């Protein structure tokens, strides 16, 4: 009997299918579009078996070459990894289902192969226990998303793709230099091993690689001022990809920042800087989103703002704050994915991305619009939706931050919530406005994925506290680093 609870499978399965589809694509072009769906479904099965173990508190390890850590690449899944990789694959599954019907212009085989790689890379980042792996996975992730952003080959998608490439490569090199510096000082790449050895490294020697790695990850994580690829890339990409970039890529990058900051470096000195960066991200993101006339661009800026929000929560640095941050991450991933998918349907129906052209859309396609409304309400945190409880937890945790800055951020988050509320409510208003315009009816196949996602959000809303309790467990496990370190380095006594 094969041991299905093996994290290695989460990387191997997508990789195998990606290569397989390159080989078979000349013969079976039509079938390639089901590959990402199959891949993420298989991954979900594996995640189920892993999850059973993880939820009992153990950390599931996967090694590659039959040796013991730290001498091999290691994949480790604790609760935080579990929730991130679960989100990646749930969203991957639903979005690839959406893509099957969204990408109509044949041939689409390259698109779906790249998408498989994107799922693979995101899953990889979310479970790896090796710092160099983070770099490699990010390169794979960036390369596949460059291709996907530029896939439409229109003028703005090529421009967006180019900007993304420049910043992505820059980020990759920063990350690489950081990893190299760490390797030079500790002689190891295993995260847990580095963490034990970093105790003997001086503060500045620790700071420089940390800052480099941080900025490398911050580009994909859309933190100010390195997020400028995002407002161009999201609108230009096909909607499924925007949903994936916003819901998954950003989230995994922030996950990597959390992992590196807490588990590897255990770094609290940088936290005030992170706090300020997050505040700026939140503030500029929401302000910019308010002035957008392009629906997808508005959502893209809102992603920036939301990223700022959960990084802000994380950077308070207490257990409650990490818990709130992860909960908000879940909320944002699901609701923003819905918003982008629905925006794709809307754009397809009206042929333009301008918000004002949507006037009266909700009177024709009521289901799509209700999905949009529900997801947006959860995103801006209107009770009784799930987002409200995460926002409450975040606000409460911000007051823990010492000094004046805690109150300032508290006020700023509320201010941002007003702005965010106004621009989303403005879209609601336009959706349900009376107009004589004729829209195409929604394609029922496209609605299925966002519908399921909204269903998930509604279920989360009905039991907000069980989610917050779970994220609290996550934060607890994350803060007690020694558990992670000892179970990863179990063989290294």
């Amino acid at each position, binding site marked *: 009997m094969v041991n299905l609870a093996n994290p290695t499978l989460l990387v191997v399965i997508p990789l195998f299918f990606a290569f397989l589809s390159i080989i078979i694509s000349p013969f079976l072009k039509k079938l390639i579009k089901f590959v990402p769906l199959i891949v993420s479904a298989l991954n979900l099965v594996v995640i189920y078996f892993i999850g059973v173990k993880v939820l009992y508190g153990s950390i599931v390890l996967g090694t590659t070459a039959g040796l013991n850590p730290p001498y091999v690449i290691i994949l480790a899944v604790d609760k935080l990894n579990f929730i991130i990789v679960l989100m990646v694959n749930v969203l991957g599954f639903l979005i690839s289902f959406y893509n099957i019907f969204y990408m109509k212009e044949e041939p689409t085989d390259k698109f779906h192969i790249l998408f498989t790689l994107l799922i693979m890379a995101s899953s990889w980042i979310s479970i790896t226990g090796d710092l160099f792996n983070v770099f490699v996975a990010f390169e794979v992730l960036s390369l596949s998303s460059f291709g996907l952003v530029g896939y439409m080959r229109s003028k703005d998608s090529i421009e967006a793709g180019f*900007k993304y490439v*420049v*910043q992505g490569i820059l980020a990759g090199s920063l990350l690489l230099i950081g990893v190299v510096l760490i390797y030079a000082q500790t002689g190891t790449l295993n995260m847990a091993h580095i963490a034990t050895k970093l105790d003997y490294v001086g503060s500045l020697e620790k*700071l420089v690689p940390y800052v480099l790695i941080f*900025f490398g990850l911050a580009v994909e994580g859309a933190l*100010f*001022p*390195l997020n*400028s690829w995002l*407002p*161009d890339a999201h609108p230009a990409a096909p909607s499924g990809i925007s949903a994936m970039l916003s819901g998954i890529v950003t989230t995994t990058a922030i996950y990597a920042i959390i992992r590196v900051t807490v588990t590897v470096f255990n770094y609290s*000195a940088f936290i*005030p*800087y992170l706090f*300020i*960066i997050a505040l700026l991200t939140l503030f*500029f993101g929401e*302000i*910019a989103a*308010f*002035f957008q006339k392009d629906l997808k661009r508005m959502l893209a*800026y809102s992603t920036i703002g939301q990223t700022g929000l959960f990084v802000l929560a994380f950077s308070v640095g207490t257990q409650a704050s990490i818990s709130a941050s992860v909960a908000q991450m879940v909320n944002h991933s699901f609701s923003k994915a819905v918003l982008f998918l629905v925006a794709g349907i809307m754009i397809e129906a009206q042929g333009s991305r301008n918000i004002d052209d949507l006037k009266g859309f909700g*009177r024709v396609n009521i289901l799509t619009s209700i999905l949009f409304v529900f997801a947006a*309400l959860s995103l801006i945190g*209107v*009770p*009784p939706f799930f987002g*409200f*409880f995460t926002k*409450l*937890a975040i*606000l*409460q945790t911000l*007051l823990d931050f010492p*000094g004046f800055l805690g109150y300032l951020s*508290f*006020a700023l988050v*509320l*201010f941002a*919530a*007003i702005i965010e*509320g*106004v621009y989303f*409510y*403005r879209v*609601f*208003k*336009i959706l*349900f*406005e009376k107009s004589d315009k004729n829209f195409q009816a929604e394609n029922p196949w496209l609605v299925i994925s966002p519908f399921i996602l909204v269903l998930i959000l509604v279920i989360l809303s009905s039991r*907000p*506290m069980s989610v*917050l309790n779970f994220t609290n467990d996550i934060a607890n496990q994350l803060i007690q680093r020694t558990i992670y370190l000892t179970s990863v380095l179990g063989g290294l006594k």
Partner: protein
Amino acid sequence: MNFSLLMILLTPIFGGLLAYAGSALHKAVRNIFFLIFLILPFFELYQYANKTIDNFYYLTVLGQSLSLGINALSFMLSLLFSLIFLLAYIFLLFEFDKSEDSDLAILEFSFLEGAVFGVLFARDILSFFIFFEIIALIIFFLIGKGYEESHNAQLKYITWALIGANSMLAAVVFLFFKAGSFGYAEISGYLSTAPTPIVLITFVLFVIGFLIEASIMPLHVWAPITYAEAPDSVSVLLSSVVKKVGLYLFTIFVFSIFGLNLFSKIMPRVFEAPLIMYVLQWIGALTIIIGTFVAIVQEDAKKILAWSSIAQSGYILLGLSLGTPLGVAGGLLHIVNHSIFKGILFFVVGGVIYRTGTKNLSELGGLIKKMPISFISMLLAIIATAGIPPLNGFVSKYLIYEALIQNKEPLLLTIALLGGTGSFMYVYRLIHSIFLGQLPKKYEGVKEVPILMQVPMLVLSLLALLFGVLPGIPMYFVSKAEAFLGFDPIKYTLTGFPEQPGLHALNVPIISAALMGGFVVAALIFYLLPKTRSVHQLDNYYAGEILTEDVKYNYSFGFYSFFDDIIKPFNEWSIDRIYENFVGFVKTVGDYIRRIYTGNLETYVSLGIIILTIFSLIYIIGGVLW
């Protein structure tokens, strides 16, 4: 049978969902389903008539149990609101009879009622906030089903509602952070020993949220356009229910959670009230005077009602913030009375719009013979609005005036009395322009509104008359509510008030009889002494021109132009304009800020380098940021 509070709260929501499903079958099925579920709350509420329940737990958030409860005040209001919801629903069926939105409107309507019950039953600061937000959300969607400008109104409403909500949320989270609990009782206990700045800041944050919903100046900017452009049944709900929810919360927070003792401990007393209450009295007074004067010069029937509604909530705020048994009784009674008579006015105007299709006063006129029942309802309502016996508005205003006299505040009393005169001016304008004067030719085929649509007006008119002649009936509930809030309830009889400190004896039936006697004498003089000649409406002239069937003489445009001339200079510095300038300023600044995302790679790179440099400098110089 025993109904839990949660069940009462869910009854309308359940009914709404059932009705929405029933609409697939037939409209009648839907209507009747929902009607049953709107009547049910009365029976369910009955068992709570004399009970105070404080802790019915229904949800656990952040380790705290959220609870529902009911007391005399929320019992009185939930009874009143159930009635208004029921009547507004009947009206809504006719208003939306030709619209495609009716099913959705009914669904939203049901959620609104559930949320209103939720706020009334909430016994902790989180539950009330949750339900309050749901109210704002649903009102946003309901407004959008109204007149042409309703979409602008939607945006204005939600902006203010969000400001209020986030201001309250700040206070909620802050108090939870400090007190460690959400419950009203625990919060109250914490506040009694809290430092003064915390008390003041959280109080102001809460009050901003409540007063926005109660459309008190200077937070009223959303109200005129929203009331005027919302569907008529929704305007009724806005004015008679949602506004009162804000004032209910104000009452609960001021007297029950913060408490007057706390305020008098931490601040000086002015005119026998703590300073902050005195400030609130003046805010109420300004709301009365400005609201009334602006209402007088409006040309749109629903705008008049909107401004009148703003002015009347000024009375309520003034009464409540006096903080004496008399003033609070007046304020609470006015909450009930205003809900009733403003409901009638919105129903009648809505009926007129339903039949004629316009709310522009200068196009209306002479409908008295066409719509007699509407006319009589409105007549009663305007008597109540102007505060003339024997209608209900008189009693509550009387109490507020007496309370002002008791507190020895001549200035505020003058303003309140002036507001009373002013309200007579605008309500007279309303009834004159709609029902009196000459009938335009195009409305000659207009009929009275359908019988079912008359029900809401007639029921409320009867209530207004009943509560006016026999003020003991509402006072029964009000005095209990007052006892709950911790005051000595004022003494009352079925027909008025006995002589007691600060309040002169009042017997409404006798006063009414005297007034009626005066009318009879006047009528006798009018009909008996000099012989008047009754002429046809067209037997008249205007500026030398003879009137014809086609061109009728209807002086309802610029009715109070002389008055308009007096207050025109003050219009220059209207609050709306200040806000508009402010919004323009903020937008300009925001527009500059967002240009940080130029779309140009070089800018981004240099931005990154700048930030990195700043951080490195801070690190090198300071080591840490602070």
